[in-house]
């Protein structure tokens, strides 16, 4: 196999890895870098559990090749908290019991954070459509939407 060396940045840290070009960014994050917070629920971009940002753009890491990470800045769920301080979205997800099994939670967090960076006052409909690619089978989404609304409110108050 013609493996390739890749240099990239993950959650602010410089990272180098070697991978088969068929490996996805998700494979690489999990199996080569040891960041298993991003989950594979489908492998076809339909569930959003593997959501990450690449140069600030929200994507499914299962639909990005590992080799495409060269020179990019990748952010994953592991990079959301700052040290021991949880991000307000993480706090609200816990407070609102917006997770049951928690497998979709990393993807929801990455996607919702990306939304709130663009819009700190999304409507319920905007939240629901933004998160339409993040499947949750446990909660029926109610508490997730409320948690995102609560986080947005806190962010607005914080200015």
């Amino acid at each position, binding site marked *: 196999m013609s493996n390739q060396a890749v240099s990239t940045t993950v959650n602010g840290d410089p990272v180098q890895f070697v991978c088969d070009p068929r490996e996805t960014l998700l494979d690489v994050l999990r199996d080569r870098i040891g960041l298993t917070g991003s989950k594979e629920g489908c492998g076809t971009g339909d569930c959003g559990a593997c959501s990450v940002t690449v140069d600030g753009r929200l994507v499914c890491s299962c*639909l990005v090749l590992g080799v495409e990470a060269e020179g990019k800045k990748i952010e994953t769920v592991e990079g959301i908290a700052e040290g021991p301080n949880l991000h307000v979205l993480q706090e609200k997800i816990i407070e609102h019991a917006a997770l049951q099994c928690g497998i979709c939670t990393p993807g929801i967090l990455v996607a919702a954070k990306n939304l709130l960076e663009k819009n700190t006052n999304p409507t319920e409909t905007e939240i629901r459509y933004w998160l339409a690619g993040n499947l949750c089978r446990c909660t029926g989404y109610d508490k997730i939407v409320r948690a995102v609304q609560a986080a947005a409110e806190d962010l607005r108050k914080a200015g």
Partner: protein
Amino acid sequence: MKYHKPTSFKEAVALAEGAEGVTRFLAGGTDVLVQLRLDIVTPDTLVDMKAIAGVKDITRNEDGSWDIGVAVSGAEMTEHPTLGKEWPGLVEAMDLIGSTQVQGRATLVGNLCNGSPAADSVPALMATGAVVTVEGKNGTRQLAVADVPTGPGKTSLAAHEVITNIHIPPRGQNAADAYERFIPRTEMDIAVVGCAVNLRLDGDKIVEATVVMGAVAPTIRIVPDAAKAIIGTTLDDAAKDKLAEAVRAACQPIDDKRGTIEFRVHVAGVLAKRVAQTAYDRARTAH
């Protein structure tokens, strides 16, 4: 699989020409990677287009026409400050593809080259009268978008050919486009029926129109009879009924997991009326 990241279209063409087995061009990857994951197509050669200069550009030319780079994502089209004002139908069609995450990657050219009869952006793109530039070993050629798809999963491009640009004609006055699709959920589905309408008014009267239907035939198709049904009218109920009739007559759908023949034909008419109305209302308020 060999992965290449050329820095020019010429280099990309050379790579494709020299490659053995299956070659795929990678822009957004939202089809290529899915096919790879599902073991439908594992390319021997993968040519990543994103390092080529200009592929992420959206340019409004002096004459009012647009050039859209082959690696411009749906999200970049939606976020563009003026593209969606002139071509709301094209932008909304692209925006309907997949999730927010997919929007971060998916491209117009990818959607076109995937050759799906149910592609959302392609009817809207055809309705605009867009032309693509194709580069191959024998040089470049221009091709109407309508001439690209030839059947499910098939295009008129040769193995060594690659699309280098999408050119959209000037919007002009009193005109607008619209796209809508039918899906069983609100998001994340493939179109069961898709319809794009692009039209121009003179006063209240439609003077130019293009009606394009998706997911109702082996390829996305322009329906000239549907356009005829509304040209010269003010899109009154009688015109809309004729439009629906013409659209339904042009349908040659299949029964599959996403819908029945009967359903597709019926909904094609319903959708055409709704989309034409949206385009008409937009054109009335356009400058």
